[in-house]
């Protein structure tokens, strides 16, 4: 009887959905520190130090600044604790401003590494 309950289509389907939800929540729990890392380079591909990188929250309804950091000597920057699922990054150095980079996350506070570097024009 236990076998018939376990192999019942309701049990299998709802069990699979529940299992997928548990696995997803475990993945989220291990990856939700709100860390966003990236790199800023110039048009030649050289790292740009001391550029300020701003993070803005961008949703269907609003756009609001949520963080500001500076690149290190290797042009790398890190944000921590960003509690959003859609972030716009912009790099600035003096009068040079990069294109805005829209980062779309699968869940709030997802840790992510911006794959391609942000380019500051000359």
């Amino acid at each position: 009887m236990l076998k018939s309950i376990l192999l019942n289509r309701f049990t299998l389907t709802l069990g699979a959905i529940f299992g997928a939800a548990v696995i997803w929540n475990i993945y989220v729990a291990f990856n939700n520190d709100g860390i966003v890392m990236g790199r800023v380079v110039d048009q030649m591909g050289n790292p740009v130090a001391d550029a300020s990188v701003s993070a803005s929250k961008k949703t269907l309804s609003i756009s609001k600044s949520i963080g500001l950091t500076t690149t290190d000597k290797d042009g790398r920057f890190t944000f921590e604790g960003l509690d959003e699922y859609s972030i716009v990054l912009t790099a600035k150095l003096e009068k040079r401003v990069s294109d805005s980079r829209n980062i779309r996350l699968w869940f709030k506070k997802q840790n992510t590494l911006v794959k391609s570097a942000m380019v500051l024009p000359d």
Partner: protein
Amino acid sequence: MKTKSKFLVHLALISISILFFLPIYWVVKTSVTGSNLFAYPPEIWPKSVDFYYFVEAWYTVDFVQLFTNSLSIAVFVVISNLILNSMAGYALTMNFKGKSLILGFLLMSMMIPFQATIIPAFLLTGKLGLLDTRLGIALPALSHIVSILLFKSNFDAVPKSLIEAARIDGLSETRILMKIMLPLSRPAIATNVILSFIWSWNEFLWPLIVARSQDMQTLPLGLVSFLSTFEDTTGALYAFSVMVVLPSVIVFLLAQKDIIRGLTSGATKG
């Protein structure tokens, strides 16, 4: 000739199925492409798929709260329907004075649309102090006359000799219902569960009237709030629609065999 006519019948059935399936396909396709509904020429096949609209829909409204409300109300409605409808259906299999009057009254009540009784229902719910509560939202759906009659027709198919034998053995009417009638009426139970779940899940008008605070809103109300707040968000809107409809579709697909069996069993007395 027989093969040819079979082919034509199947061709007609497939064409009609495609026609009925097309709106569902369009909603799902738009939820992953975000393409404009009025674009010309229309994009039949998705060129690029983007599941991010589901993330936008999830976070734009409090989907978890809406889902929890809808689910808790639906579960309560299903359980109460099972208990109340089975008891009423069993009572209607007995012969008692005024039975035909009660049956006629139930059938006549089915002809009155719910919208015509909304004002007295609202006043009653208010007097009971159940406005803006989950119980208040579930109250009109605690029993459905269609499901009562469904149970009745299934119970009528159970041999009377079985019930008499159970009475002779000393079983009470409640135990006869639980130990004999319900186990023999699994299709009716399945149909009752699925129909009451789907009706409760998709209910819009009554929750709109009873739910005053955002915490009490159900998924259909959340969908309308989403639509009224964000008009030009086709992808996210359709993604939200898919998320609202998905649970009832899954429940129906899992139990469609039982629904058909439940609706047709008892139609012929063996």
